[in-house]
């Protein structure tokens, strides 16, 4: 635990790793409460990682996958049901582009392989995707095609950040911020009422911040391709795959959105990415939340870009 001061109060920074990314909790409280908050946050994020990771064989998501292979339906708990309802609403609103059943496609696009998959492999994967084919009648879920997989990666990290912030408040932490690999949820502003400063990494040099955003409440989420990307014949392929076309989206290098919760910010930034350069920008502008888009050349646009330029 690293400590610093902001005004008269001590800020504790606790770094840990979960959900496959670097995480950090900052709280302005006494050391004992900070330690307790760190334990609660790590336990909660680990719980959600164990439950929803599609990299683990023992996760609930893996059990759902097994039920698809067996052709059976599975009863899900309340929390999972709420996540599925939320994902279903996003699927409907994005016209099918936001799809938690796109797991098979994500796997076909192995970004470490440095090669574009065969068209037949993409088609095969596409045949095992499509939320509209899923039978979902809360709490019963049936994935109709063997090999179909859920990938809740697009919502769980944001949900976990919000959950962590809520649990911190419940144990009495009033000032702090949760950062799960760039998805941020504010527990409460600094004790003196000032906002936390969140840096958005530059696409080309992730050690550098391209923008500083003030966050006094709510959440900030960034969706981007500069951390997981492959370049073949000069073309960038992101980890965000459009389930309708089967190909990664040619879009911004990153989209960041500020909202009342990290969950909403995450959904909005993912939508912005999925819709691509023109319609993504227009959609974000009409959405009305503060946003920042960075294109492949590192140019910033959006309401937050203007603020940063003025600052």
């Amino acid at each position, binding site marked *: 635990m690293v400590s610093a001061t902001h005004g008269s109060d001590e800020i504790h920074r606790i770094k840990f790793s979960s959900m496959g990314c670097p995480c950090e909790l900052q709280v302005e409280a006494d050391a004992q409460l900070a330690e307790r908050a760190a334990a609660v946050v790590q*336990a909660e994020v680990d*719980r959600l990682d164990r439950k929803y990771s599609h990299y683990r064989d023992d996760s609930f998501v893996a059990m759902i996958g097994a039920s698809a292979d067996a052709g059976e339906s599975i009863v899900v708990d309340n929390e999972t049901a709420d996540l599925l*309802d939320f994902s279903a*609403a996003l699927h409907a609103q994005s016209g099918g582009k936001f799809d938690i059943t796109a797991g098979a496609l994500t796997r076909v696009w192995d970004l470490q392989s440095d090669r574009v998959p065969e068209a037949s492999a993409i088609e095969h994967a596409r045949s095992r995707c499509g939320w509209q084919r899923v039978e979902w009648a809360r709490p019963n879920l049936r994935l109709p095609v063997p090999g179909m997989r859920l990938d809740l990666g697009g919502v769980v990290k944001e949900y976990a950040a919000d959950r962590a912030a809520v649990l911190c408040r419940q144990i009495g932490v009033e000032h702090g911020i949760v950062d799960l690999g760039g998805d941020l949820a504010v527990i409460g502003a600094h004790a003196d009422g000032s906002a936390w400063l969140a840096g958005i990494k530059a696409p080309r040099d992730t050690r550098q911040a391209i923008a500083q955003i003030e966050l006094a409440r709510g959440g900030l989420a960034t969706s981007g391709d500069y951390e997981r990307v492959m370049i073949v014949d000069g073309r960038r392929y992101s980890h965000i795959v459009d389930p309708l076309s089967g190909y990664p989206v040619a879009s911004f290098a990153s989209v960041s959105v500020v909202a009342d919760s990290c969950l909403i910010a995450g959904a909005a930034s993912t939508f912005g990415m999925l819709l691509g350069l023109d319609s993504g920008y227009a959609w974000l502008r009409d959405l*009305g939340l503060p946003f920042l888009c960075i294109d492949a050349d590192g140019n910033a646009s959006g309401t937050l870009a203007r603020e940063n330029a003025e600052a």
Partner: protein
Amino acid sequence: MGARPHLSPSLAALMSAAAALAPEAHAQTATGAETDSRVSYRFNDYSEDSLAPGPHLGDPERYRVLSQQFQLATRAGSESAIDVSATHEVMSGSSPWYLLRGPDNRPIQVMSGATIQEHRNEVRASWTQGAGTSSSTTWSASYSQERDYRATALGVERSVPLGDALTLGYGGSFSHDLIDPFEAEKYDRVRHEDKNSASAFGSLAWVIDRASVLQTGLQLNVEHGYLSDPYKLVSVGSSLVDDLRPDRRVQAAWLARYRRAFSAADAALHVNYRYAQDNWGIVSHTVEAAWFQTLPSRWELVPSLRYYSQQQARFYAPYFVDAGSHNFYSSDYRLGTFGALSASFNLRKRIGKWEFSGGVERYHAATDYALGGADAVVPGVVSYTRAFIGLDYLLQ
């Protein structure tokens, strides 16, 4: 962050989809902490003002009620919640008995003799299925007993989402009350009477935007049985008769509630309006506004204001000159024309697992506060002061 963003249809849809996945809704945590359970204690002091200056007979000191309540609210599993409470009340003081026609036609208020201490006990339990979700059902039951009155009530209410931004609420309740007036023989009062009450309501709550919700609903209450007050008499000509009301009362009410959150100020405004009308001729309006303000260090302040106006029942009069064509008579001020203004201030402070609360309300009623009440003559209209303190312990 710049100016507050406006609300677009896309954002409304996102907000509404996310609302079901409120991180607060999931009590299940890695530590197994259940933060929704609490034990509470409340002490309440309700004190009516002495009878207003004017001609009267008897003790002008009116009712005082001291009550204590214990409550346990707890989660039972991930989706259901149980709430049980027990209340004990001690009442003392005198109340308006009847009105005499005075020499100048001014009514003279006659008070009942001051009662010795009366006690009332009540137990109440409710069970909610789907607690913390958008679709929930609450079953409730209560039983209340005092020396001359027993009431048993059962109720159910449901809330069902109709769409992204619309929630339907509906429910009903039934109550069976037994009345055995005290000193029935001495004062020639009725004995062993009963009444049944049934109530049904339906409401629609509409999420207007990210910060505001509008709810509107209709309620129907039907009472049948002995609806008079066995302790009140009425002057008719030169004789005194029992308070006598119809044995059926049907009331319809329309209500509207508006909630708006001001997130920058960490505050919320609640505004309520209720219109009610019944077949006895009583028409009433209630307007209420409350401001919920959260302050640093876990303080919450809630100032609120309420206005109430009522037009009298057809069979109300301070006294009746003669029996005439009247079938029913009552001089109970609660059926007369009056209006009331009330202001209250509540506060709450959390320290660790303890929550302290306290509040005070001043309620002032008068005939000329009522809409069109300038000429009304309703002696005995009551004003009161209420104060409470409470202590909650949050169970982990």
